């Protein structure tokens, strides 16, 4: 798939399917911290439902802990900022890891990176849906279908997105309405706030169009995910004890 365009920076594309989300996060953090290349990582669905909080997430505030413990739903705290999602095989993940010098028109701060990403995805959804970046979410109209998070180091950054291609209504009940919610949410509960991408395009069309949009910024080459990397990731699975301690806090 190596289609080099002279002058564009190189980006390695890793295409995965059904990889556990914790493993995906470990790969991403390793590449962010130890590689000097640009990367696009696509994971078409993860193997089972997981709750994923941002770096400062507190389960007592964000998660309905009792059913989560009873139903043995894994809860992960990831290395990037942002909010809480529940992901499963209906979630499509797309992550961009870039050297700041590879995208010199983008200042390495949250809002310029967010704007850059919305320009890329506006190409994906052009003619298909009323796509916008609304505060920090990707929306069709007023409904969120993609959640974003970032980590920014001295010379590199990652911008990753979980896209709701489809979701199970029941799973949303594991999440509380967060205290820190975007203004446009207007206190709507989850099911009134989000919408599935499947009403607009197929999984393969979305992935193909995303790769095509990336091609306008980068020369793409296929790559395998790294293995046996010597790196200690910071994303972690919360233990049952930690969840039980958080449950005590809510009472």
């Amino acid at each position, binding site marked *: 798939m190596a289609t080099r365009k002279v002058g564009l920076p190189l980006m390695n594309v890793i295409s995965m399917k059904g990889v556990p989300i914790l493993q995906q996060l470990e790969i991403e953090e390793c590449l962010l911290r130890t590689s000097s290349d640009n990367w696009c990582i696509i994971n078409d669905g993860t193997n089972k439902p997981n709750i994923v909080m941002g770096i400062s997430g507190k389960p007592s505030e964000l998660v309905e802990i009792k059913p989560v413990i009873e139903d043995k739903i894994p809860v992960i705290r990831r290395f990037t900022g942002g909010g809480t999602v529940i992901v499963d095989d209906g979630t499509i993940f797309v992550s961009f890891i870039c050297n700041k010098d590879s995208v010199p028109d983008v*200042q390495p701060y949250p809002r310029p990176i967010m704007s850059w990403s919305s320009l890329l995805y506006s190409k994906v959804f052009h003619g298909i849906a009323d796509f916008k970046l609304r505060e920090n979410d990707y929306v069709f109209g007023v409904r969120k279908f993609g959640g974003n998070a970032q980590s920014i180091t001295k010379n590199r950054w990652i911008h990753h997105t979980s896209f709701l291609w489809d979701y199970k209504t029941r799973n949303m009940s594991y999440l509380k309405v967060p205290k820190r919610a975007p203004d446009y949410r207007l206190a709507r509960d989850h099911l009134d706030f989000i919408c599935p991408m499947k009403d607009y395009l197929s999984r393969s069309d979305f992935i193909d169009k995303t790769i095509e949009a990336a091609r306008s910024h980068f020369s793409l080459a296929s790559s395998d995910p790294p293995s046996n990397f010597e790196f200690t990731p910071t994303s972690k699975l919360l233990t049952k004890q930690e969840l039980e301690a958080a449950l005590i806090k809510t009472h």
Partner: protein
Amino acid sequence: MASRLWASKAASYLKISTFNRGFASVVKDLKYAESHEWVKVDGKSCTIGITDHAQDHLGDVVYVELPEVGAAVTQGSSFGAVESVKATSDINSPVSGKVVEVNEELTGEPGLVNGSPYENGWIIKVEISDANEVNNLMDSEQYSKFCEEEDKH
């Protein structure tokens, strides 16, 4: 500072594209790193934080990840992070040494980094291991010019 903050919030609500404030404040006697941290040197000790330019570009800080007291820091390397908007952003140490104090107030009030970046929003205090490293840093005038150049892009 308050009126600029209001203007920025109003622009955001109205979805108007804004440019960041023209000239972020700098403090004269501090030294500055290209990654937008400041250091106030006091003999063998120093205080470190992030600059007004940095906090303005990062947005509202909602969480600060602090190092442990006793941790080693290295010039140019990350020792902690701030969370703002949806991002974690590394904080890099302008000097090498050992952390002797962290600003615990930031745990309950991370917004101090935005509201008072050079005073109450300080992040760590360090016992410096190599005083010569401070010569690698910019003074306030050099840092102001550096920020102007960066914001032109």
